[in-house]
């Protein structure tokens, strides 16, 4: 029986998303928190055959995701994660969203509770260009990854890679794996807790586990 795929072919996706796709075990259960229009979830469903779910705050994002055949609900990471059962998923993904939540620590707590693993990517406020903007220009930085003026940014809880490492240690969350992406999304071969990572990393991706 011929089955036509109704979904568009998977194109290129953001490089932090690409590494997330790499890390996820095929056939696992995945919850993508803040899934946008479903780009990552779509890639995971098609390339890793995951059983994928998404939560997205914007209705446009939800509609776009559902219309491409993904299981996505309208919801808010700050308020809705408490409804999810513990260990309901193999991976819970939070991509470029933690800094936009009202209570990042609580959100992180939920991520490692709901998922056996959590995958979190965050922009690095410790990147040298960001520091230079503040030190030499005396201005809040606006970069590719932090692309908003201070008065309109949804990013209300900035942190550096070093801050994330500290928070995880403080919460008893194990960093199983990390990836530092520098300028032009080139990987920076440095451990997450190094000065080098925090200086050269534009963003970082963490594979986390509670305990």
């Amino acid at each position: 029986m011929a089955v036509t795929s109704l979904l568009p072919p998977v194109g290129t996706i953001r490089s932090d998303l690409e590494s997330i796709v790499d890390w996820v075990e095929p056939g696992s259960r995945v919850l993508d928190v803040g899934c946008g229009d479903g780009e990552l979830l779509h890639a995971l469903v098609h390339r890793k055959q995951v059983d994928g779910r998404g939560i997205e705050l914007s209705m446009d994002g939800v509609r776009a995701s559902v219309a491409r055949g993904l299981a996505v609900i309208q919801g808010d990471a700050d308020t809705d994660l408490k409804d999810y059962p513990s260990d309901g998923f193999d991976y819970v993904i939070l991509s470029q969203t933690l800094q936009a939540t009202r209570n990042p620590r609580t959100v992180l707590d939920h991520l490692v509770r709901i998922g056996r693993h959590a995958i979190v990517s965050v922009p690095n406020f410790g990147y040298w260009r960001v520091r230079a903007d503040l030190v030499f220009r005396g201005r809040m930085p606006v970069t590719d990854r932090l692309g908003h003026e201070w008065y309109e940014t949804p990013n209300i809880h900035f942190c550096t890679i070093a801050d994330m490492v500290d928070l995880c240690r403080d919460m008893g969350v194990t960093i199983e794996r990390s990836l530092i992406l520098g300028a032009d999304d080139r990987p920076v071969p440095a451990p997450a807790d190094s000065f080098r990572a925090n200086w050269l990393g534009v963003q970082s991706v963490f594979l986390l586990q509670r305990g």
Partner: protein
Amino acid sequence: MTVAFDATSQDPSQAAVSDPAGTVRLGTDQPLELDGGGALTGFRLAYRTYGTLNADRSNAVLVCHALTGDQYVAERHPVTGKPGWWDLMVGPGRPVDTDRFFVICSNVIGGCMGSEGPKEIDAQTGAPWALNFPVITIADMVRAQKALIDHLGIDQLFCVIGGSMGGMQVLQWAVSYPDKVYCCLPIATAARHSAQNIAFHEVGRQAIMADPDWRMGDYLNQGTRPTKGLSVARMAAHITYLSEPALHRKFGRNLQDRKSITFGFDADFQVESYLRYQGISFVERFDANSYLYITRAMDYFDLAVDHGGVLANAFRVKGPDGRLTGTPVKFCVISFSSDWLFPTGESRAVVHALNAVAANVSFVEVETDKGHDSFLLDVPEFYQVARGFIEGNAARRGIAAKVG
């Protein structure tokens, strides 16, 4: 509206399927046990089918109609002559594509378009059932539909879809028969009828019962019809299906065929004239006692009540190892921002319960000012979401884009 079975899967015991205009008598071997006690033996169920059942019988879609709907989902109505009540959703190339799916829609029991209900003749007495018809529930309606699905030789429905009371049946299907439903779309609905909605229904029922022609429900035997009462019930209900902005946009304070107000009680305003028309045209096609029975069924609907008051427990099923696990049914819950009869919060409660059991659920609140009736109207975003969900699941289920 084609013959439902292709030659390779023809099964003589399923003869009723080849008559898509069927009224089938079910429950002759096994009576339909009712929630309120008692049972219906040899009850009629009127239904229509569209499209062709595929060889592995995996492409069946059950459409559940709302309070005043019927089985004529995608074709001209025999009484009113109007197009099918959901021809934006069901038909060739529509989200529920009749070139791809075998679509079934039956009149609910308690209804008045040929299924067993207060208007039909009680075989025991030879007279219309009237108020001797047993009070039925949404779960009873779904049991009757399940008997039809069994009769049609379908083991699992690909999809169950419906809005409002149809959505209640959809939820009930998923809870009663989780292994018989692959995916479902409960639209503009709730897991229980709210106090406000029960109150509106009570107004409608009181209007009917206050009509002297109702004759304690015995009007069919006495040769009268409570058209005034039923029409007032419809008028009141119709307001709840719309929204203030929609009513204002459509009518404002415009006067009906006159230059100024008349200082009398004629229908001065267009909105009055419109409501009167809605009431009068409704009584042509609907039975007053049916209205009592079906509104009652909605009032009694509360999915959580049989599960310790915890809605999430309604969506737990026994896994192969005997342990409770989340329902395997895939859900797409849809609400409309201006629906004040079944507001988004009701849908969200269903979604929260489904999340609590880690079920596969999508949820969209469609932005529109058209009120509860949005699911029947031209709201493109709604159909776009429904199409995406249905096509995504059909591809996963391996259902060909066209039967044949």
